[in-house]
C-alpha cells in the first residue's frame, strides 16, 4: 500500500510517500512494524498523541482496520485557516 507522510513526520522519515509491503491488520500494527524496521520510523512515531492518521484520505484512528486500504497517511495535528 502507499504510505504518505506530511509536515514534520515527512521530514523525520525522509520521504513524502513510499510503497510498503505489509500484512498489518490495523494502523497501530503498521506503526509497530515500521518502527521495528528502522530508527527513523521509531523516532517519527514515538509520540502517538502528536500524530493523526488518514486511511484512504479519511481521518481515522490507530485502531482502524487496513483491510482493503490503498493509502495510509501520517501527519501532525492540522493547522489550516
Amino acid at each position, binding site marked *: 500500500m502507499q504510505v504518505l507522510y506530511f509536515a514534520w513526520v515527512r521530514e523525520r522519515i525522509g520521504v513524502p510517500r513510499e510503497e510498503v509491503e505489509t500484512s498489518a491488520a490495523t494502523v497501530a500494527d503498521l506503526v509497530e512494524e515500521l518502527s521495528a524496521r528502522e530508527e527513523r520510523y521509531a523516532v517519527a512515531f514515538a509520540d502517538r498523541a502528536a500524530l493523526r492518521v488518514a486511511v484512504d484520505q*479519511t481521518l481515522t484512528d490507530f485502531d482502524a482496520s487496513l483491510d482493503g486500504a490503498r493509502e495510509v*497517511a501520517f501527519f501532525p495535528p*492540522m*493547522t489550516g485557516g
Partner: protein
Amino acid sequence: MRIVVQDAPFDLGEEAGRFAQADAGVGAVVTFTGIVRNTAAGDLKAMEIEHYPGMTEAALTEIAERAQTRWSLSDVLVIHRHGHLTPGEMIMMVATAAPHRADAFAAAEYLMDYLKSRAPFWKREITADGAAWVDAKDEDEAALDRW
C-alpha cells in the same frame, strides 16, 4: 458550493462580489478572510503551507456539506491557498450566503472551526532563526465542542 485549493493569490473583492450576486434568494452574505500574521517579534519572512492533495478537497467539501445540512444556506465558498506566502498575504477565505444573517454567521464560524483542525493543511513559519512547524492549539480542538 465551490471549494478551491490553489497556490495562486485570489482577489477577495472580486470573489465576494461574484458570490453575493449568484443567487436571487440571498438576503445575507458573511465572509471571513485569513491573513498571514507576522510574529510578535515582527521577524516572519514567509509562511509555507503544505497540504494533502485529494484529501484536502474531500475534507473541505464534507465540512461544507455538513454546514449546508445544518443551516439554511444558499451557497458556500471556500478558497484556501498553499505554498509560499509572505506576511500580509491572504491565506484563505470562506463565504456563506443565506436568506437570513444568523445562518450565514453561524455557518461561517462552523466552517472556520472545522477547517482549522480537520482539513489537512500544515503551516510552517520561516524566520531569521530558521523554519518551524506551527503547533496546533488546544483551543482550536476545543472549539469543535460547541457544535
